[in-house]
């Protein structure tokens, strides 16, 4: 049984008892506990089930490397799955549930998978996907879908808030152990701006547990003195509960701070994402102990040796009454000594080395603890809890030499430096044979903009495990340690039955036998083996398993470890919350919203908005109980019969000016723009160098040197950027400048048979008659009191004036139009009415008829391509074989035989099926609407040889099995002669 000891626990406050719950059961802990230590104090060693075989799993570690103790934490808006119990600080009312079991943690039916282990070997998923297919679909998939998976997905909106924090420092130090503190003292004394972050709530790293004296004081006192000195330096900032998550290019670092996870009732943000630019980064991230691979090393009660002493010293918790320690090094003897000093029984230290005569071994022996050398664990006894171990000779094949009853096993296979942050941005590693670990290669560091190293490493993260190595200038007293013996399998001659019970990756259920199988099947690359076996691919990213798995693979391949290499270390170091990544960017401030000068009127008048880029545009203006469709129909009818008003302010407006403006415009557009006369407008098409249509719009020539380019609403910014790109990078000697004046102007489309009347009623100095201002002309002057530019252009097919007034006058002008237009039933219309009316006229819409693969010739717009110009952007591309292929689908109108509306995105079906068994196609719908004007569905689409197939009937698919028949017609459904717009 694990239990709370009567005394001890340097991090807990025994005066502050806290109530929490696990699987609905009410339990007690202390302030300062982690959820893991509190569970152990309550005798709860069994905390979850493994991913594949649903084997019972207990707490293995005491920090972020924990693979097993993942819980569903919290309720409703504070629910979060896969939270590590070992790094979750206890608070009053914490509620946790275990994961991945059914129906209960104690009795799990999925554990039957364990008996099926032989049919779920490495690469099971891949093999089963391939063959036999029906088996996968009908047998395996339902079982796996039901039993696999970790925590539950949250269902509620996150109740917490999060924030980002930007900071620039000279030196960032990650890790607040002795090495990190020492680095901060040094950099702080040099006057540098220093930030020191520590992922836990306590400073000092392992030293307070593992001991050692520094300059005549205990490690604990040295740490306190260092913290005091750092606190007195105004240039040094210290943060606990703040993890260095990732190191990126040129000194950019993300750190992840648990601000209020342990105090959820406060108003503070839950997490803070630190976005740091550091001149230099020091990683003092320590090391992680490795498990040993022996049969049954996953039975609850088997823990890492250092974690076990952490629970005793830090939390006053004993993981077991009788603990067998198994090791290949001296460090694990510390655990035996601490357990013994806490009054717990250590029946045996099983040391794989032939000799154990280091200082720590001698201390343990002096305390009367038995040491068995040259020995290993043949197997662990027990199912949901360790009941004993069988010993064997490490050099042999695992014949049992003796049985020892115990309820816990402390294992240590040596230590692996935490090299993650060093590696994130390109730092390379070297294999250190003596210490049997990868450590940072100082000759191949991550490099900054100046080509020099911007990350350095200190302490255990560098493979310097002893205090004397970390503090070379200090007087350190600590036991010297004898060398470890690399042990990658215990015993070294274990047979297949034992190897199939040696876990490498506890979370993903990968065993020694799986990696060996992968090697036998020809997997030589560690990256491939990882994916094939899923070793190290669980939420712990292989913090315990990677090096052990790599060693097993290298043995199986008969190649040295450094030759096999490691997998890639990717940020973040441990998972960080999606909330922290989003920060404040949610709800109303997810992104900026652009509002036209008339936006408030739309809101006041019940507009239903739709997003168009960062703009919000009215989709329609429903009145009373009107549906959107009814509102759109009313708006169209009002516009076509009398007077409609559209807020067109979002339309892009870019000035192009200079002596070479005409030449430049001729390059931008497919048609001739330099010949446009001042006072006139021309519709034009823009292609990119690939020849694909990217934008369209009306150009007005303001004067000899100046063009006003109208772009689509979504195109204003990127078309302006496109112009600047060519001007700055290709034709930089041309005398042209551009200015994006989109937001300088409010623009209103005044549309319908009464459009001229309402403008004339407002008065002013402009002659708006057809003679003075004909179709495709523009004029500048006054309408009423408003300084205005009036463009006679039409996107609806009706008589239409687009009137631009200064932005500050937009709302007043809109109001004046409504007042003067009242007698004509002036009706505001939205984007849907705009779309339907343009479709009735067969006008294309960028983004509907085009999708980045469509050229003007596909849309029957050859008339807008100048044959006279030597060059324009896209001209060379239009001559490519694929572009001139007569089999390209071309624009036509489509009219259903039954008058229905064709489904959006529907395909015209052709005979036969393709290689994938899908129906062949010969066209697709690009725009489809109900036309209130015509009282039936209208559509446009791209069809193979479409323009030559007028009158032919095609079948279009629907989501179901049914098809819809539609006839190929002209895309101009309304007023084909264009008489209405030209009056």
């Amino acid at each position, binding site marked *: 049984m694990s239990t709370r000891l009567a005394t001890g626990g340097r991090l807990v406050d025994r005066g502050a008892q806290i109530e929490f719950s696990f699987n609905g059961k009410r339990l007690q802990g202390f302030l300062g506990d982690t959820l893991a230590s509190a569970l152990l104090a309550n005798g709860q060693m069994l905390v979850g089930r493994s991913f594949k075989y649903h084997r019972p799993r207990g707490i293995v570690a005491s920090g972020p490397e924990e693979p097993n103790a993942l819980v569903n934490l919290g309720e409703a808006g504070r629910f979060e799955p896969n939270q590590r119990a070992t790094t979750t600080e206890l608070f009053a009312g914490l509620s946790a549930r275990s994961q991945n079991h059914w129906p209960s943690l104690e009795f799990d039916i999925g554990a039957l998978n364990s008996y099926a282990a032989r049919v779920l070997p490495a690469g099971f998923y891949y093999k089963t996907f391939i063959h036999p297919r029906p088996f996968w679909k009908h047998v395996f998939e339902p079982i796996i879908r039901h039993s696999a998976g970790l925590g539950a997905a949250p269902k509620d909106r996150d109740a917490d808030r999060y924030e980002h924090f930007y900071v620039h420092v000279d030196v960032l130090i990650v890790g607040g152990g002795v090495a990190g503190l020492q680095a901060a003292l040094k950099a702080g004394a040099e006057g540098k701006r220093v930030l020191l972050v520590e992922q836990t709530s306590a400073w000092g790293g392992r030293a307070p547990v593992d001991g050692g004296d520094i300059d005549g004081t205990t490690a604990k006192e040295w740490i306190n003195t260092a913290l005091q000195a750092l606190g007195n330096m105004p240039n040094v900032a210290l943060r606990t509960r703040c993890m260095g998550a990732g190191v990126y290019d040129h000194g950019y670092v993300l750190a992840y701070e648990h601000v209020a996870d342990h105090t959820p009732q406060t108003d503070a943000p839950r997490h803070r994402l630190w976005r740091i*630019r550091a001149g230099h980064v020091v990683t003092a991230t320590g090391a992680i102990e490795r498990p040993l691979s022996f049969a049954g090393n996953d039975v609850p009660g088997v823990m890492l040796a250092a974690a076990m002493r952490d629970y005793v010293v830090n939390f006053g918790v004993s993981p077991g009454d009788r603990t067998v320690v198994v090791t290949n090094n001296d460090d694990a003897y510390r655990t035996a000594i601490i357990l013994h000093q806490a009054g717990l029984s250590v029946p045996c230290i099983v040391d794989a080395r032939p000799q154990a005569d280091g200082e720590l071994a001698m201390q343990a022996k002096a305390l009367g603890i038995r040491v068995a050398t040259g020995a290993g664990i043949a197997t662990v006894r027990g199912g949901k809890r360790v009941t004993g171990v069988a010993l064997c000779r490490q050099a042999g094949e695992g014949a049992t030499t003796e049985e020892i009853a115990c309820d816990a096993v402390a294992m240590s296979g040596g230590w692996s430096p935490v090299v993650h942050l060093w590696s994130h941005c390109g730092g390379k590693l070297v294999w250190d044979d003596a210490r049997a670990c990868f450590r940072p290669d100082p000759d191949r560091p991550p*490099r900054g*903009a100046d*080509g020099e190293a911007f990350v350095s490493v200190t302490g255990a993260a560098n493979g310097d495990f002893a205090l004397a190595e970390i503090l070379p200038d200090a007087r350190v007293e600590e036991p010297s340690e004898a060398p470890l013996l690399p042990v990658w399998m215990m015993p070294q001659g274990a047979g297949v039955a034992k190897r199939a019970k040696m876990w490498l990756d506890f979370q993903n259920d990968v065993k020694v036998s799986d990696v060996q199988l992968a090697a036998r099947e020809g997997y030589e690359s560690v990256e491939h083996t990882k994916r094939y076996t899923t070793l190290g691919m669980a939420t712990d990213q292989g913090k315990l398993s990677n090096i052990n798995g790599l060693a097993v693979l290298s043995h199986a391949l008969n190649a040295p470890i450094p030759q096999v290499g490691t997998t890639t270390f990717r940020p973040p170091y441990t998972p960080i919350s999606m909330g922290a990544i989003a920060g404040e960017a949610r709800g109303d401030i997810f992104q900026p919203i652009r509002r036209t000068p008339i936006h408030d009127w739309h809101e006041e008048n019940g507009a239903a908005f739709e997003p168009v880029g960062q703009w919000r545009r009215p989709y329609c203006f429903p009145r009373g109980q009107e549906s959107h469709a009814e509102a759109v129909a009313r708006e169209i009818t009002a516009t076509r019969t009398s007077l409609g008003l559209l807020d067109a302010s979002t339309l892009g407006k870019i000035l192009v000016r200079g002596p070479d403006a005409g030449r430049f415009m001729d390059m931008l557009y497919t048609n001739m723009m330099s010949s446009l006369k001042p006072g006139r407008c021309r519709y034009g098409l823009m292609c990119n160098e690939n020849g694909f249509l990217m934008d369209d719009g009306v150009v007005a020539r303001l004067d000899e040197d100046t063009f006003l380019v109208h772009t689509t609403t979504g195109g204003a910014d990127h078309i302006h950027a496109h112009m*600047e*790109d060519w001007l700055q*990078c290709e034709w930089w000697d041309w005398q042209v400048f551009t200015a994006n004046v989109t937001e300088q102007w409010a623009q209103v489309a005044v549309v319908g048979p009464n459009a001229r009347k309402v403008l004339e009623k407002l008065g002013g100095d402009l002659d708006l008659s057809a003679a003075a201002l004909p179709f495709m002309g523009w004029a500048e002057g006054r309408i009423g009191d408003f300084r205005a530019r009036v463009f006679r252009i039409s996107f609806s097919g009706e008589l239409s004036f687009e009137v631009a007034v200064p932005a500050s006058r937009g709302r007043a002008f809109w109001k004046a139009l409504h007042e003067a237009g009242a007698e004509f039933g002036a009706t505001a219309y939205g984007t849907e009415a705009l779309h339907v009316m343009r479709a009735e006229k067969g006008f294309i819409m960028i983004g509907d008829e085009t999708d980045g693969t469509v050229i003007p010739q596909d849309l029957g717009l050859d008339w807008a391509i100048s044959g006279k110009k030597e060059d324009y952007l896209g001209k*060379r*591309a239009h*001559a490519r074989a694929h572009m001139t292929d007569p089999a390209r689908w071309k624009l036509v109108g489509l009219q259903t035989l039954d008058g229905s509306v064709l489904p959006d995105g529907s395909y015209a079906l052709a005979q036969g099926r393709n290689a994938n068994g899908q129906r062949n196609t010969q066209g697709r719908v690009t725009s489809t609407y109900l036309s209130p004007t015509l009282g039936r569905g209208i559509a446009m689409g791209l069809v193979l040889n479409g323009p030559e197939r007028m009158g032919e009937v095609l079948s279009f698919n629907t989501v179901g099995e049914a098809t819809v028949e539609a006839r190929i017609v002209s895309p101009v459904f309304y007023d084909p002669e264009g008489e209405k717009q030209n009056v």
Partner: protein
Amino acid sequence: MLILTCPNCGLAADETELSPGGEAHLKRFGPGSEDADFEGYLFHRANPKGVHFERWRHAYGCGKWFLAARDTATLEVFGTYPAQTTEPPAEIITRIRARHPDWSPT
């Protein structure tokens, strides 16, 4: 996240202020050019692991395009320079050669 100094306004700009524009010093092939030349201009990119010349726009700054020479493997920046040139300045070539003596422009 890279930092590049905009030669137009002098600011050391975070990558979030910049928008990338792909390989620099491409020669435009227009109407009348050979298919192979045009294909190379549109689609073929060096994409080296090592010395690379790139186009960047100081999009959330001064708005100007500039060019950068950097090592895509080590992230070392050899320098940035105005976009109005068809080849890298001599001092940047010198800096590249100091680090990669065998390097030559292709």
